[in-house]
């Protein structure tokens, strides 16, 4: 089972007084555990985020979320436009002492793009790769594709020899019912080494003394301690049993802020919350669907009082949005971010123009366990819509129940949050949400709309290698999204982390991913 001997780290005295005794081991109280030690196990952002402390990609995001070299030092696109040549960093070793070479990159890319890999969608344009020499790799793509580097930030590199020795060259196949060595063991090149793991209890990371990069942190290690219950997590923070949480419950903020030993770090997430509408001929109830008419959609939009929502529901922690992507995302412009005014009379007039019958009933699908304060948001908006003479039927349930309804068109109006992760580019929502549903595009096009003009823009953006031209194409496409009110943007949701006072530096990232290699403690 567990192949590493269990590590007995501290006595009870240390556990109880951890904040003083072990100032340099950071205790990270997260709201959930990682699924496994294999970053390719399934496409879960949090698991990839945590394992990024152990595994690294060819490139990574820097402190400002700009792409910088990591395991690759440089790259160029060859003349055929579809082959990317990466020069790798020399003198990098894995945690087991093996040297990092081009073989490892090829084996890792093969593993992640294997047909049973749940993560192959993260590398959509990949065709093949081959070793040129020990420190050079060629990656061949399906066509000219500008976002390869963005995709590669989340593709972690394994040691080929380690995979071969442990029969872990292929990703774990859930369907086949087999377990994988990499699920329980890790061997990366990153700043921290996994020392032991007890699922749902504790995963211990110690510092990697042979890391190729100069550490900006002063930790000797950290422990990932999942605490699912929000109240217990806050209590553990107040009693100093954890030093850091990336998920401080919004309702407990005053309490945490008032505590003498706690710092609250607040920011705005990249995740944009929006509402989608069905564009099908009929509503779920069988009535004619008025939302096919842009005027009806705009009426829904203008009936929402965002200021009230921000003040009453989001406690002034959110940022009202006019665009469907957040300001730091490439493709964003200020003009897109201008909201249509909140105007009840205009909304009523638009409904009348569109011929929407008085008291129209429709299903409003919301999640219990989805976005920040989602249930309250939905209730508030439903009330605002009834003020313009509509009758939304609120349908609130857990994600596992609601998602099948959404994907099969059994929801007239629904919520959606999109952070553009891991790509951090407007191309992500444009392809996944706003493009027509065909082939690999429009997977989240739950409303079933189709704008050929928009599709064309998205497709050209997807093969435009010139950055400025590509961003311009994306902005144009986003303009169509806005003019046609394909979805109604609401806000970027708040993001709250908290640390105890002995954590001196914990940079907050808008993609809501902690990067402890930038953290330090007193």
């Amino acid at each position: 089972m567990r192949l590493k001997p269990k590590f007995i780290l501290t006595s009870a005295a240390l556990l109880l007084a951890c904040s003083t005794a072990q100032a340099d081991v950071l205790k990270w109280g997260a709201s959930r555990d990682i699924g496994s030690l294999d970053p390719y196990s399934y496409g879960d952002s949090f698991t990839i985020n945590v394992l990024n402390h152990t595994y690294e990609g060819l490139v990574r995001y820097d402190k400002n979320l700009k792409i910088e070299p990591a395991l690759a030092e440089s790259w160029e696109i060859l003349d055929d436009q579809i082959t990317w040549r990466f020069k790798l960093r020399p003198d990098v070793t894995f945690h087991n002492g093996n040297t990092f070479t081009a073989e490892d990159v090829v084996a890792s890319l093969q593993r992640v793009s294997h047909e049973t890999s749940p993560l192959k969608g993260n590398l959509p344009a990949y065709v093949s790769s081959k070793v040129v020499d020990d420190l050079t790799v060629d990656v061949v793509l399906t066509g000219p594709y500008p976002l390869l580097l963005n995709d590669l930030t989340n593709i972690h590199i394994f040691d080929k020899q380690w995979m071969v020795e442990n029969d872990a060259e292929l990703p774990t196949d859930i369907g086949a019912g087999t377990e994988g060595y990499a699920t329980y063991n890790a061997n990366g090149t990153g700043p921290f080494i996994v020392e032991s793991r007890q699922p749902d209890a504790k995963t211990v990371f110690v510092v990697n003394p042979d890391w190729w990069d100069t550490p900006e942190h002063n930790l000797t290690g950290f422990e990932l301690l999942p605490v699912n219950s929000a109240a217990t997590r806050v209590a553990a923070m107040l009693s100093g049993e954890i030093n850091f949480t990336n998920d401080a419950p919004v309702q407990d903020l005053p309490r945490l802020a008032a505590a003498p030993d706690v710092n609250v770090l607040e920011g705005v997430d990249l995740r944009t919350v929006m509402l989608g509408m069905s564009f099908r001929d009929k509503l779920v109830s069988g009535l004619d669907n008025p939302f096919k008419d842009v005027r009806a959609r705009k009426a829904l939009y203008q009936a929402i009082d965002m200021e009230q929502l921000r003040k009453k529901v989001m406690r002034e922690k959110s940022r009202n949005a006019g665009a469907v992507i957040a300001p730091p995302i490439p493709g964003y412009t200020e003009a897109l971010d201008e909201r249509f005014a909140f105007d009840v009379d205009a909304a009523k007039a638009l409904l009348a123009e569109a011929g929407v019958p008085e008291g129209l009933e429709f299903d409003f699908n919301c999640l219990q366990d989805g976005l920040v304060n989602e249930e309250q948001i939905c209730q508030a908006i439903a009330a605002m819509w009834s003020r313009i003479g509509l009758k939304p039927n609120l349908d609130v349930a857990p994600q596992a129940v609601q998602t099948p309804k959404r994907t099969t068109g059994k929801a007239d109006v629904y919520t959606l949050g999109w952070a553009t992760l891991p790509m951090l580019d407007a191309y992500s929502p444009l392809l996944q949400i706003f493009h027509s549903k065909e082939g690999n595009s429009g997977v989240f096009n739950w409303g079933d709309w189709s704008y050929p003009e928009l599709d064309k823009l998205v497709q050209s953006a997807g093969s435009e290698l010139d950055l400025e031209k590509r961003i311009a194409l994306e902005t144009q496409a986003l303009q169509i999204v806005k003019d046609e009110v394909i979805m109604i943007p609401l806000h970027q949701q708040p993001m709250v982390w908290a640390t105890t006072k002995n954590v001196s530096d914990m940079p907050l990232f808008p993609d809501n991913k902690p990067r402890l290699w930038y953290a330090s403690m007193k």
Partner: protein
Amino acid sequence: MLAFLLKRLLNAAFVMLAVAFLAFMIFRFFGDPVEMMVNEQATQSDRAELRERLGLNDGLMTQYARFVGNAVQGDFGISYRNQQDVMVLLADRFPATFELVIVATVLSLVIGIPFGVLTAVYQERKLADGLQLGSIIGVSLPSFVVGILLILVFSVTLGWLPAFGRGDTVDIGWWSSGFFTSSGRAALVLPSISLSLFQITLVMRLVRAEMLEVLRSDFIKFARARGLPLSVVHWRHALRNCLMPVITLTGMQIGNLIAFALVTETVFQWPGMGLLFIQAVTFVDIPVMAAYLMVVAFIFVLINTLVDITYAYVDPRLRNDASVKGGASNGH
């Protein structure tokens, strides 16, 4: 006796099949695991393939038959979320839950029995009234509230005990125990109190009722008349006659405690089977949910069957009665 045994075992098997079917029906309508397993970038065909590979496209009866067939061999598949063998996962978590339940049971006896005796003996005093009132509060407070209150007082305010987790554990074979480290023992205190609270009141009230009965009986009166010290009469003679039902109740409640440790485990992040189940629910991890239900059902069925057989062994009338009934139904 053989016919009786056979019948009990058939009964047990039928109950397990029914539980399996129920579990299956519930999960069938519970939601879609595939949506939780893939990430935003996955394409429609990726999803369809995964669905096919997991066998979610097969008919309900096919899936049920496959599930039962595998379950009989102890194979519950691998978890969708952890990608580990479900039985290994449950076996890993069982020690945590079991140690918690054992400590809670011991607490409930050690506290519940003396309190029961005290309230029975000193019926007329304020102390007894206070304990009675306290026991009502103990029964009516939901255990997550108790847990949070305990954490607030003993972890946050006083800083004496850890608010979550299991502390350090020592592996003895496949059993990981928290009994042998001081942090492990410290971590046990709050969750076991929180879990035992209901149990304490149950034991206390049972002992009280039995004691009141026994104290009225002749042999106690004679014992008093013989001039034995009251403490000996109450704590030795009377109490001994009350313990049989307490032991039966405790045995039966162990299954309940394992099942209801779920809430306590969630509040205290106790890495046991209950926590595993709760997480499986949020993730629609069907293999884990199904296996958990089967294991808990199995514990209940096992205890009940053992109790039935023991009773039958002790009291031949039950056995005969049952075998007559069994014979009759075989005739149909």
